């Protein structure tokens, strides 16, 4: 029987701090008047900053609670980017929430709980922790999507998300129970050893199929993507920007823990499944996005295609492939934050800038924001020398390296299809005339103006100097 000592808790300092801080914010917020909500806002951002500092503070790989919690470079990198993306989301969301009467403490508390779930998910060393971390993230997300109760679209999205999410959790649990049945352990390291040694892996593979389905559901990979467009469109944009960015990093962490740390021995089998999912996601995501007139919906389909690209890195099944996929997940999270942040920036009380039409002639009205938005669109499309291009380059290279040349060709073809709908947004902004040519009043939220500008320009800077970030990803996976 395992014994718990203080060193176990030492490994969990960032998570423990975040838990206590959430409880404090939850109680403290009750004593604030609605006019003082800014205190909660800044307190939440400070919490994220302190948690990030604590994550960087401790070095060295360690496990805690008998291997249930794993602390390594991969978990650290993912946690830092989850925290960074969430802080960006908080900055972007404030004025939108305030304009719509959604500026409540629960938004921050639920987002922070989701962050805590993601931190456990990427550090999981046992099937139980994977499942519980996932549920912590998912339950918070369902509630966030439904936060705007008076909107039927929101409620519909939340209902679909809840039902399909519960189904996906069920699939994952079923798969986990099969894997437990085949290996007799919940510990991912022991499962790895058992999956490598398995001579007759029928039951194990039966479990792998369901686990891959569960992962695909959570990522939103085709053909398990049905919930994604409705949820992205229905959720308040301030929530869409959250669920569209940070959880993708956590989903990558979950896929890595389950498939590589756990079921590495069954690699050749799940790589085939992921390759099929990647092709379906690339095709459905890119082709369906062309037909969308709603920007949030278009970005939802573009997410599906990006998940397809991310899977190209996972299909590689070697550390360099995982590093490429992680780089891709980080680049996507930062790009999604700006893209949805732009919708938040241009929305006002009683007006949602979520139709592509709403961006018509943006160049005449607000040239700087039109420039930032086009930078983001070019980056999402994968135009060099922007951040998104190098993500695509690395995952395509990973696919070629693992001998899946045909997969890389499919990826490249659909990347070109994808350029069409991203460029349509740019065309609408620069070449169409605005219905109302009056210059757009600068948003009153100064921190948001600055942060979104820095975030968008970072896509250019990180594109020009992508080396250090990739080196960090590679180092996490033990490639020097």
């Amino acid at each position, binding site marked *: 029987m395992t014994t718990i000592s203080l060193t176990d808790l030492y490994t969990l300092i960032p998570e423990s701090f975040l838990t206590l801080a959430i409880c404090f914010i939850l109680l403290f917020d009750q004593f604030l008047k609605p006019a003082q909500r800014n205190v909660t806002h800044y307190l939440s951002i400070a919490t994220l900053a302190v948690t990030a500092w604590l994550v960087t503070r401790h070095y060295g790989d360690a496990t805690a609670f008998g291997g249930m919690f794993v602390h390594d470079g991969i978990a650290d990198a993912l946690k830092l980017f989850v925290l960074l993306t969430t802080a960006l989301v908080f900055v972007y969301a404030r004025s939108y929430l305030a304009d719509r009467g959604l500026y409540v403490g629960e938004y921050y508390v639920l987002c922070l709980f989701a962050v805590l779930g993601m931190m456990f998910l990427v550090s999981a060393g046992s099937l139980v922790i994977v499942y519980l971390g996932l549920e912590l993230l998912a339950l918070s997300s369902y509630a966030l999507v439904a936060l705007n*109760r008076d909107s039927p679209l929101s409620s519909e999205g939340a209902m679909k998300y809840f039902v399909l999410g519960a189904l996906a959790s069920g699939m994952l649990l079923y798969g986990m129970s099969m894997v437990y049945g*085949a290996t007799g352990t919940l510990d991912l390291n022991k499962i790895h050893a058992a999956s490598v040694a398995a001579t007759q892996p029928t039951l194990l593979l039966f479990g792998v199929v369901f686990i891959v389905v569960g992962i695909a559901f959570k990522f939103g990979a085709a053909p398990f993507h049905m919930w994604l467009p409705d949820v992205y469109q229905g959720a308040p944009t301030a929530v869409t920007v959250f669920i569209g960015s940070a959880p993708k990093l956590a989903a990558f962490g979950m896929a890595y823990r389950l498939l590589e740390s756990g079921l590495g021995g069954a690699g050749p089998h799940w790589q085939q499944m992921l390759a099929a999912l990647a092709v379906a996601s690339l095709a459905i995501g890119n082709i369906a996005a062309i037909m969308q007139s709603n920007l949030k919906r278009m970005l939802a389909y573009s997410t599906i295609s990006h998940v397809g690209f991310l899977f190209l890195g996972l299909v590689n099944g070697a550390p360099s492939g995982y590093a490429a996929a992680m780089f891709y997940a980080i680049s996507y999270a930062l790009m999604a934050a700006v893209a949805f942040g732009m919708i938040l920036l241009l929305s006002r009380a009683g007006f949602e800038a979520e139709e592509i039409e709403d961006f018509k002639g943006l160049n005449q009205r607000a040239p700087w924001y039109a420039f930032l938005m086009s930078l983001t669109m070019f980056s999402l499309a994968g135009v060099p020398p922007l951040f998104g291009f190098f993500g695509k380059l690395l995952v395509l290279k990973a696919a070629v390296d693992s001998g899946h040349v045909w997969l890389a060709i499919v990826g490249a073809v659909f990347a070109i299809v994808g350029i069409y709908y991203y460029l349509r947004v740019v065309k609408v902004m620069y070449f169409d005339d605005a219905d109302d040519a009056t210059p757009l009043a600068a948003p009153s939220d100064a921190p948001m103006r600055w942060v979104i500008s820095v975030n968008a320009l970072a896509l250019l800077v990180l594109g020009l100097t992508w080396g250090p970030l990739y080196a960090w990803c590679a180092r996490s996976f033990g490639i020097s």
Partner: protein
Amino acid sequence: MTLQLICFYAFAAVMVASALAVVTVRNTVHAVLFLVLTFFTAAATWILAEAEFLGIALIVVYVGAVMVLFLFVVMMLDIKPESMREGFIRFLPVGVVVAAVMLVEMLGLIGVKAMAAKQMPADPAVADGVAQNTAWLGKALYTQFLLPFEIAALILTVALVAAVALTHRKRTGVKTQKPGEQVRVMREDRIRIVKMAAETPTNPTTGESA
């Protein structure tokens, strides 16, 4: 045949019979009560297999709480047994197909399980020298599974916060009593004394004032 085996067959027979009764009896209240019996005998077989905790949890959670709720719902609904029987013949082919598919799946699953070469690990309670299953579970929950246990607590907190965030709202235009204000009320708030000249009655027949 040991006593344990005899008990198992007895419980299993009652369980199968009551499970059949759940789907065949006409009265829905009786069906729910048979479901209670099914759960009860299932709990008994678990206790027989030395999984006392699961057995007790089944009785406390399902029989004690969930089924009572179920019974309330069934009693509230006005279900006519005749309407339940409608279309029995019409839907029979579909039902048979579904039942056959489920049977094949279950048999397949048992087949897959038989294929697995791995033996299930021995009962950890026995291995650790703790006689009782419940005691072992409690110990494992607070040592080996402490972290999952705490995360589960966080999930329940999220459920609580979400439920309040989604249902609690300030309602306007609701007439509720405010005892504080009622107690604090002064005579001046309710009664206004107006000074006015006394009216002189008029004669109804002549219209002249008296």
